[in-house]
C-alpha cells in the first residue's frame, strides 16, 4: 500500500531518511537544504527515529563527523547544498577513499560569487571527481525513491561507497507535488539492517583508518577505487529491479523518453527534464521526431549504454545547468566522450541554461529542438556552446 501525499521535495526526502532510521546524522544548516534537516531534527526530537544528531559548527565538520561515525560502524546521513558542499570538498574524497557508505541528499544550488541561493547544478558537478556515487532526481517522487535506493546501493557489500542524491533547489525542494510514500515497514525491509564492516568500535580487532600511502602503493589504491566504481551500474540496476517490485516505479541508469525513433533529442537532467518532456510531446504532434534522455546515474557515468541510446539520432543538444568556464558544460563533456567511440553519432551541441535559478521555459526547449531540426537537415552547427534564456 502506498500513501498519496502532497509534499515538498525536502519533506519527501526527510521522510525517506526517517524510514531508513540512521544511527547518526551530522548536519549544518544551509539554504535550500536547511528545511530537510529541520524536519529530520523534529523526527529525532519526537522519537520517530533512533538517530543520534550531531549539530556541528560547519559542513566541513559535518562530513568529518559523518566519516568518524561511519568508520565507527553504522548508518550515517547528512544533507547540504552549494557552499556547504564546497566546504566539504576535502572530506568528500576521504569518505569515498575510506569506503564509507554515507548517504547525503544534495539540494542543488548555485555557487558564489555572486551570492545566489537558487537552484543550479554547479555544486554537485564540482564534486564530480570525489569518488561519490551521484543519483539525480526529476521530482519529489524520484528524490524520495532515489534516497531509499541509495542506502541499498551505497551499503552494498561489493561497493561500500558514499552516495549523493541530487534534487533541484527550490524547484523540487520547496514545491509541493503529488507523490506516493511507501509504508515504513516496506522501506525498512527493503533497505535492511546495516551491515557492519571494519568498525572502529570492534575493540577486539583494532583498525587503523587513514594511513599514509606513498608512491609504492597509492596508484594501486586509486585504481581499486575505480574498479569498485565499475561495479556500481550493476548494483543500481539490481536495486532498481527490486524497487520496481515494491513500488511499481521503474528506474534505470537514465530515462529514455520517446527516444527509440527520435531524430533530434535533448540530454537534460533533473526538474528541467519534466518541462522538456512536455515540449517533446507537443513537437511530436507537429510531426517532429523529438526525444529526450534524462541522466539519473551521473557517477559512475554509463558511457556505453548512453552511446547506444543516442548514436542513431541526427542531432542532440546536451543541456547543462552548470558551467565550466573556458570549457564545455560537464554533462556535454561526458556525452561527447560517450559518443566518440561510436561508428555512428549525432551532431552535438551544448546549451548552458538556468544558472542561479533562472527559469527554464518550454520556449527554451522548443527553440533548442528547432535548432536541432535545422542541424539534422544539414544546416550545420553554428556554435557548439551557447547560453540560453540570457538577457542581452
Amino acid at each position, binding site marked *: 500500500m502506498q500513501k498519496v501525499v502532497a509534499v515538498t521535495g525536502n519533506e519527501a526526502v526527510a521522510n525517506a531518511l526517517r524510514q531508513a532510521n540512521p544511527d547518526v546524522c551530522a548536519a549544518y544548516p544551509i539554504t535550500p537544504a536547511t528545511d530537510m534537516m529541520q524536519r529530520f531534527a523534529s523526527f529525532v526530537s519526537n522519537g520517530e527515529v*533512533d538517530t543520534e544528531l550531531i549539530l556541528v559548527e560547519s559542513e566541513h565538520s559535518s562530513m*568529518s563527523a559523518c566519516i568518524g561515525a561511519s*568508520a565507527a560502524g553504522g548508518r550515517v546521513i547528512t544533507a547540504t547544498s552549494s557552499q556547504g558542499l564546497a566546504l566539504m570538498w576535502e572530506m568528500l574524497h576521504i569518505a569515498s577513499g575510506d569506503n564509507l557508505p554515507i548517504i547525503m541528499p544534495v539540494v542543488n544550488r548555485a555557487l558564489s560569487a555572486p551570492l545566489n541561493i537558487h537552484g543550479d547544478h554547479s555544486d554537485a558537478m564540482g564534486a564530480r571527481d570525489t569518488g561519490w556515487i551521484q543519483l539525480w532526481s526529476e521530482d519529489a517522487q524520484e528524490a524520495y525513491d532515489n534516497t531509499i535506493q541509495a542506502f541499498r546501493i551505497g551499503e552494498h557489500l561489493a561497493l561500500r561507497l558514499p552516495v549523493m542524491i541530487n534534487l533541484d533547489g527550490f524547484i523540487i525542494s520547496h514545491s509541493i507535488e503529488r507523490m506516493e510514500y511507501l509504508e515504513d515497514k516496506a522501506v525498512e525491509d527493503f533497505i535492511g539492517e546495516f551491515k557492519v564492516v571494519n568498525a572502529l568500535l570492534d575493540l577486539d580487532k583494532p583498525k587503523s583508518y587513514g594511513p599514509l600511502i606513498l608512491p609504492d602503493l597509492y596508484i594501486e589504491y586509486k585504481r581499486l577505487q575505480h574498479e569498485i566504481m565499475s561495479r556500481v551500474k550493476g548494483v543500481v540496476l539490481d536495486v532498481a529491479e527490486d524497487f520496481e517490485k515494491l513500488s511499481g516505479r521503474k528506474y534505470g541508469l537514465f530515462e529514455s523518453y520517446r527516444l527509440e525513433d527520435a531524430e533530434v533529442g535533448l540530454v537534460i537532467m533533473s526538474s528541467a527534464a519534466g518541462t522538456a518532456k512536455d515540449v517533446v510531446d507537443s513537437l511530436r504532434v507537429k510531426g517532429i521526431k523529438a526525444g529526450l534522455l534524462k541522466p539519473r546515474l551521473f557517477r559512475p557515468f554509463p558511457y556505453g549504454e548512453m552511446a547506444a541510446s543516442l548514436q542513431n539520432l541526427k542531432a542532440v543538444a546536451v543541456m547543462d545547468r552548470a558551467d565550466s568556464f573556458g570549457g564545455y558544460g560537464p554533462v556535454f563533456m561526458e556525452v561527447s566522450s560517450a559518443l566518440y567511440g561510436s561508428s555512428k553519432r549525432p551532431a552535438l551541441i551544448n546549451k548552458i541554461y538556468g544558472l542561479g535559478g533562472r527559469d527554464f521555459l518550454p520556449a527554451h526547449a522548443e527553440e533548442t529542438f528547432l535548432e536541432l531540426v535545422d542541424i539534422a537537415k544539414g544546416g550545420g552547427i553554428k556554435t557548439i556552446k551557447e547560453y540560453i534564456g540570457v538577457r542581452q
Partner: protein
Amino acid sequence: MSTELKLKELSKKEDLFTHGHRMCAGCGAPIIVKMVLLAAEHPVIAANATGCLEVSSCISEYTAWKIPWIHTAFENAAATISGVETMYRAYKKKGKMDKDVKFIAFGGDGGTYDIGFQSLSGAMERGHDMLYICYDNGAYMNTGIQRSSATPRGADTTTCPAGSVIPGKPQRRKDLTRIMAAHNIPYAAQAAPSHWLDLMKKVRKALSAGGPTFMNIISPCNRGWRSKTDDAIALSRLAVETCYWPLYEVENGETRLTFKPKTKKPLIEFLKPQGRFKHLFAPENEQRLKQLEADIDAEWQRLLKESAG
C-alpha cells in the same frame, strides 16, 4: 583494570603505541602518547590530526597503534572523534556495546591552535565525552618548522626567520589552554612529559570527567628547537621550572597550579640550549628578549593570582 600510577605497576602494562614508528629520535610526541595510553583505564579509540605523529605512526601497511585509530585530515580531529563517540552512544542506546570506551584526539599545535581551532571549539561546545590532547611543539614541524600561533615571541622559524630587521616572531603566543577553559568544559590542563606522574594523573581526571576535556602538553622538538637530540625531557623540565610552561588545571572553573617551583629559574636557562632563540642574545635584540620574558612573567602572575582564589 585500574593500575596504580607507579612505575613498577605501569611497567607491567602493555604499550599501546609500539616501537617501529618513524618519529625522529628524541621527539617528545611518542613519549606523550605512550604516557597517555598507559594512564587510560578503559579501552581507547583515538583520532589523529594530520601532522608528525600521524604521518610517522601509520604508514601503510604498518601501524604503531594497537588501539582503533582514525586519521582523516588536518583540521578536524575533534569533529572526527565526535562522530566516533556519537556512534558509540548510538550503539549503547541500542544495547550493541557493553564496554565503556574512552575517546581521545591527538593534534599538534598547528592542527589545534590554528587550522583545527573551529572544529575543536565546536566539539567542546557540543559536549562530547572526549579528551583532546594537543602536543605543542610550538611550530608546524611536520612541514618544516613554520610559525604557528603557538610559536613563542622571538622564536626563529622558517616563515618568521630571525633577520636583521625582524628578529623572529613578533607576536605573543595564543593562550589556548585558557581559551579552552573558557568553554566552561569540566576539565582543561597543561602538562609536560618531564612531570610524568602529574601528566598521567591529569589524563585520568580528564577521562573520568564525563564530558569534553582538553590537555595541552609541551612536546620538545629537537629539529625545530635546534636542541640536542637527547634533551627532550631536560628541556621539558626547564620549561616547567622557568614557568615558561606552567603546570596547572582548570577543574569545573577552579584554577589550580599542580606544580610550583621552589625558586623560579631564569627564563634564559630554557632559551639558551635552543638554537631558535640564539639571536635573542645579540645586544640589538635585547628588547625582543625582554618582551618574551614579560609575556612569561605576566602569564605566571595571572596564574598565581587565579589559583590563589
